[in-house]
């Protein structure tokens, strides 16, 4: 969003090879025999974020995007990989340093009903981070909370009400005010609008954009809705089964999608004026289980542009999209075997190109 931020070289957040595996509850005997099963929610993801930048993470539900966000926010312990934030290694900080980190990374949650404690007034909820980090107390605290309320479009009179007295959009504003209270550098927004009405979605997105311009916050914006991501993101990462399928600037991803999965997601956005092409195949079925992912390319079982044995035998690496595909963005990477094919072969595959 802001021009100044993009010129800063060293990224605010660098996460390398992040893995988060959840053990599946098994009996004590199979655990003893080493028969433990894991759900590979996030399986080796690299992501970086510069100051003031918004990176969108998209994918179907169950692809691990929420887990990625929570791992980066250190709400989950990463199983592997390293996270750097603001020139510091934060992969396994704990105690006071973790608390300090919490002041810089905040989370906005998906479900505005469940993310606010029903037994506390919204005033108490927003004041809590100020207390925890000793930022304000007494009258000063109250004033700060009122200020935050006004900043997110709520009123002072709302202060002593309970979450259930608000609409979904208002509740999400409370959640944003809570995240904003400590003036964080990074906000992980985990599907912040997917539980809201479309008209309210736009309001919240605009609010988030305004706050970003005002405070220079970076967003890791997680969503399953591409059109929402398009509006707010500078760069986009597409996730499938715990891995990144394609990554690049928002423009590149939307104008020149390379991965069949990305294209399928694009097609899932309803449009009125569109001639259909052979590539307009909508995805069917659900993603395979992340506890037992397919061999080779994780997407091969549903891929509409399946090549053959190589997709089953070998997992494609993330590689820079070659100039042949019309890409001008050096950061545009994709994990697909089609990238190894010549231009002719690819054109043959898509007669409408």
């Amino acid at each position, binding site marked *: 969003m802001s021009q100044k931020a993009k010129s800063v070289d060293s990224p605010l957040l660098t996460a390398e090879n992040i893995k988060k595996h959840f053990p599946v509850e098994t009996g004590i005997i199979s655990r003893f025999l080493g028969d433990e099963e894991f759900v590979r929610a996030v399986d080796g993801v690299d992501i970086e974020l510069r100051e003031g930048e918004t990176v969108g993470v998209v994918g179907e539900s169950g692809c691990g995007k929420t887990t990625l966000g929570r791992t980066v926010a250190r709400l989950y312990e990463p199983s592997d990989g390293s996270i750097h934030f603001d020139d510091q290694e934060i992969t396994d900080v704990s105690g006071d340093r973790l608390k300090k980190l919490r002041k810089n990374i*905040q989370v906005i949650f998906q479900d505005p009903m469940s*993310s606010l404690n*029903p037994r506390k007034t919204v005033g108490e909820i927003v004041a809590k981070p100020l207390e925890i980090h000793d930022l304000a107390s007494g009258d000063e605290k109250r004033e700060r909370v009122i200020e935050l309320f006004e900043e997110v479009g709520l009123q002072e009179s709302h202060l*002593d009400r309970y979450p259930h007295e608000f609409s979904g959009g208002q509740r999400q504003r409370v959640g944003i005010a809570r995240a904003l209270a400590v003036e964080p550098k990074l906000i992980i927004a985990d599907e912040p609008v997917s539980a809201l009405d479309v008209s309210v979605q736009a309001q919240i997105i605009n609010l988030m954009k305004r706050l970003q311009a005002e405070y220079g916050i970076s967003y890791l914006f997680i969503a399953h809705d591409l059109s929402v991501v398009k509006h707010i993101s500078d760069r986009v990462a597409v996730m499938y089964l715990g891995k990144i399928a394609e990554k690049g600037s928002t423009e590149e991803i939307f104008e020149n999608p390379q991965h069949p999965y990305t294209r399928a997601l694009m097609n899932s956005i309803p449009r009125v004026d569109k001639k259909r092409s052979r590539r307009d195949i909508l995805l069917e079925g659900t993603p395979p289980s992340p506890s037992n992912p397919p061999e080779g390319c994780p997407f091969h079982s549903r891929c509409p542009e399946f090549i053959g044995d190589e997709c089953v035998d070998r997992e494609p690496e993330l590689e820079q999209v070659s100039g042949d595909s019309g890409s001008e963005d050096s950061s545009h990477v994709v994990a697909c075997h089609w990238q190894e094919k010549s231009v002719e072969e690819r054109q043959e595959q898509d007669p409408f190109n």
Partner: protein
Amino acid sequence: MISRLINTVSRRLTGGSETHLFGIRSNLLERFSRILKRDRKAQVGLSIVAVVSLIAIFAPVIAPYDPMSQNFPVMQPPTFTGAHPLGTDSFGRDLLSRVVFGARLSLAVGLSAVAFGTLIGVPMGLYAGYYGGWVDDLLMRMVDTMWAFPALLIAILAVAIHGQSIWVPIFAIGFALIDDFARITRGEVLSIREEEYTLAAESIGMGKFKIMFEEILPNAVAPILVQYTVSTARAILTEATLSFLGIGVKITTPTWGSLLRQGRGFIQQAWWISIIPGLIIMITVLGINLFGDALRDAFDVKESGGT
């Protein structure tokens, strides 16, 4: 009548607006009074609980005689009027006075036993549910072990060590209730732990201890409170059992259970010595259970408040 009283009390306590009362949204009282208005069972339950509690509190005022004095004719049948409305027992003690004082002890034992179980069981369930992993395994296996010991066995053990006193049934019954409270709390915590507000609390830097007692426990209070009432009824029954078997309070102490026991030998000559305390136990336990049901209904709509 009662519901209007509760309404007034709740408004007095909270100054008319919604605030916290022990971490519970206080409109609970209003909701409870609404349930009272239309639910006959709740009315009966609350009335019984109120009457028994009042009798227990004002026992010295209500009881016509000293429950220990043996100055009256032996085994007089109940007349429901006159000097000894419920008759006298085999030692010539006034049965009404003994039942009234018995309410005091039986309720005290019941409530304290449940308090004992709650104070230990709830924190155990809270820790087990929130920390999970080996803490959960350790605590819950302890609870499983406790589950294997009936209150009766523990009472016999306690009597053997400590001799007969009022503390024996409190400890024995309370100990047997720990596992119930631990399990219920743990189950509740397991679901609340997955709520996003717990994660949100973590993300703003709250410590685990604070999260447990500030975010999780207030949301788990409802089922614990319902369990508390139901367990009180059970505790009163168990106390009666223990006293009947002679391993509860001292034989002279007038609890409802010990009254039952004293009448056992004379059931053919003087049925009232056993039957009357028995009936009173039954009515009280029924009343508390009905009250617990109404409380559960009041809590049931916990999230549906305004929307």
